[in-house]
């Protein structure tokens, strides 16, 4: 299993300004700081409409989940959201066990998560 690979893609107009962060490999106590750095760079650069694409993530532990907790409040206070998408059943079960679906918006696909941002497709 490969460690964590992170791919960041900015959707530009006419799409809504959404940053899609695709994570592959495993997200654990060793690799979580890499994702935290990526998210911090995005948020400090003004990106507050964020989607994390989990489709190629094989494994997550609480250290990985903790990264999303760091940013969710500040992103929402700035009028954005941190949406989570395309989790395997195995990854979703960890989020579910800890009650994260109460706090986070979780979508079946990345396209659904992008489309859920306000004003999507209006331009």
């Amino acid at each position: 299993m490969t460690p964590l690979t992170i791919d960041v893609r900015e959707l530009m107009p006419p799409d809504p300004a959404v940053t899609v962060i695709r994570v592959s490999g495993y997200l654990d106590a060793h690799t979580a700081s890499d994702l935290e750095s990526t998210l911090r760079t995005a948020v400090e650069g003004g990106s507050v409409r964020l989607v994390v694409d989990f489709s190629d993530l094989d494994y997550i532990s609480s250290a990985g989940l903790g990264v999303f907790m760091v940013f969710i409040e500040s992103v929402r206070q700035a009028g954005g959201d941190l949406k989570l998408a395309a989790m395997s059943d195995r990854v979703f079960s960890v989020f579910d066990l800890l009650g994260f679906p109460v706090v986070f918006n979780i979508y079946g696909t990345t396209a659904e998560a992008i489309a859920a941002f306000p004003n999507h497709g209006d331009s």
Partner: protein
Amino acid sequence: MVIRSMHRVQPVTAQFTVLAETASLSGLRQHVRSAMEAERWQSTVIEAVVLALDEACANLVRHAFHGDARESFTVTLQMEPDALHLEICDSAAPFNPSEYLPQDVESYLRRHRAEKSGHGLGIVLMLSLMDEVRYVPAPQLGGANRLTLTKRRG
């Protein structure tokens, strides 16, 4: 003669020495996963046990050893026909996981907001995923703290 059931007389045991750094965790997960697969544990149980072990060891590395890779601890996996035990032994300062237990994700968020830090979710996972979690601190300085995680088959 009718053989009604067969059991292995000896439990299957494996022991791992793990460096106290987070980089060690993926290898440990892989070894335990492989050992359980060889004994035909159900895949959902394997994932639950691997995650619980990962959480226990990550806590130990971070909070007891502070990521000092000169240190190490041992993990002993013992598989019986109907149960599995993981014993994690270390000689760091005692770290009782249950003292870091948040109630739920919303209390975690409140704590995170108040302290700008937060841990404890891993302990919730560990307790949720295993049938039994026992912690015994070292009886004297230099002795071993023991955390035992038990999962029963079926």
